[in-house]
């Protein structure tokens, strides 16, 4: 029991398949509390699938996901889990303002039917400020750039006031300045004792941004502290390449 307390998320024997083809095979994963963890792997390795399975958005063939208090049901924990989907997963031409979208982060706490309160709107203003989008609150979301869309999704997740965050490529299509802003935000979350799981593509920045890393390619190749498991051999195993491209990274 005592040991369990140290993990924010535990994944056991997780196998996920689309049709008959397995996309994740027998995944065992323990994510310690208060860590910034990168999920790294080649295209089609199952990174997004892993996150979606942990969130309960996909039904696994076998296996279980457990959160800190021992419950595996996301619905019970809805207020504790924040989610930043890939920004391309929604239609940004939807008739809504930036504030409307960020306010959706409060919906979980409200539950069915109840309307957002004044304090929820206050909260959205604060989280927009945190991502530097306070001047865009009344903007139509179709007018946002890719980086701004990412920041809006981030603000929405912050409004969830969760304990564990899952982020699917939050750095995709953002400029250097926005990337720095997001990184400092992630570190701030970590300082508050939150656990953050990030699907990440840029191997160069893994040691700078994260303190924990999981390398996956259908299976978990390695998972642990960045300075222990993020080395050439594991990267080779993950990417099945000669490693020439990766040698410069580590």
């Amino acid at each position: 029991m005592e040991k369990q307390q140290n993990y924010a998320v535990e994944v056991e024997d997780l196998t996920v398949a689309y049709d008959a083809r397995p996309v994740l095979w027998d995944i065992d994963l323990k994510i310690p509390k208060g860590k910034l963890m990168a999920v790294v792997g080649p295209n089609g390795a199952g990174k997004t699938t892993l996150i979606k399975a942990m969130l309960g958005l996909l039904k696994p063939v076998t296996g279980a996901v457990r959160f800190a208090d021992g419950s595996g049901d996301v619905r019970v924990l809805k207020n504790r889990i924040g989610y930043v989907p890939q920004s391309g997963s929604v239609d940004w031409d939807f008739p809504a303002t930036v504030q409307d979208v960020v306010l959706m982060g409060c919906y979980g706490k409200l539950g069915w039917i109840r309307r957002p309160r004044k304090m929820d709107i206050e909260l959205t203003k604060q989280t927009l400020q945190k991502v530097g989008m306070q001047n865009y609150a009344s903007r139509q979301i179709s007018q946002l750039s890719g980086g701004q869309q990412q920041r809006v999704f981030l603000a929405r997740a912050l409004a969830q006031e969760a304990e564990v965050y899952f982020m699917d490529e939050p750095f995709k299509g953002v400029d250097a300045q926005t990337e720095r802003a997001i990184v400092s935000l992630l570190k701030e979350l970590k300082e508050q004792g939150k656990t953050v799981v990030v699907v990440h593509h840029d191997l160069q920045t893994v040691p700078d941004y994260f303190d924990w890393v999981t390398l996956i390619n259908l299976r978990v190749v390695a998972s642990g502290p960045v300075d222990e498991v993020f080395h050439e051999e594991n990267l080779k195993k993950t990417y099945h390449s000669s490693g020439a491209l990766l040698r410069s990274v580590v």
Partner: protein
Amino acid sequence: MNSVSALFLDYTFQTVALGSALLGLISGVLGSFAVLRKQSLLGDGVSHSALPGVVMAFVLLGSKKTEVLLMGALISGLLATLFIVGVVRHTRVKFDSALALVMSVFFGLGLVLLTYVQKIPNSNQAGLKRFIFGQASTLLQRDIILMIICGLVLLSLVLLFWKEFKLFTFDTDFAQSLGFSSKKLNLLLSFMIVLAIIIGLQTVGVILMSAMLIAPPVAARQWTNKLWIMVTLSALFGAMSGITGTAASSLVPKLPTGPAIVVCVSIIVLFSILFAPGRGVLYRIYQRRKNKILYKLEGGSPDVPSN
């Protein structure tokens, strides 16, 4: 002018116009969600697939009552939806193919059944054909009451689950991650859309009904960037077309009501696509011209955040 005011005082006209307005209003509201969820075509599938249900209800129960026939329509519409969803889920057939297939099979079956029914003595004037193109003039007061009840239920549900529908329509996965069952929401919203379609069948008919579902929200989307304004405008456009279409068909001899309503709503769509500020075609041409001049003068981007 006299004939118009006389028309609006006519009881039959009032009944039909009220029915058409209600139909436009309801389908305008529910259609907004169908369009935003990119399920416009599903509405077309459901309405076409309702035909065999109408005929079967008559064959099995021998009743010409609207509610009986519409119940049949509802069942076969839902059945078709289940088929489409099932085919997409369990085979490699894609959504558009599954939809086209199921829709034409059901509609074809409906036509075959209709021909069969007309050969049965005593049922020749069953009036089932009115469901193909719709026949608003057959609307009775009790049909209107049925529409009002269904409409009130649907509108209350939309108001009650407004937050959930908005979230679910925009970002299904996120809704699910917050604990709002996307299965339940999908079921509820789809059922509501199907019900809205069924309500309109008698007036507009199975072939044109999807226009009532799609056109008002498409027009409304042009004028606003807020969901609640879009839904309200869509309801308004639908109701307006209902009344105008009914009036047109009453004033022009031999002009059928259903198609007249659809023509009216199409005019609203055309106008909105051309002239709406912001999203309209003309506005965008104007904006592009202006930008060109700005670029020439300053060589910079004119799109500086304004607030």
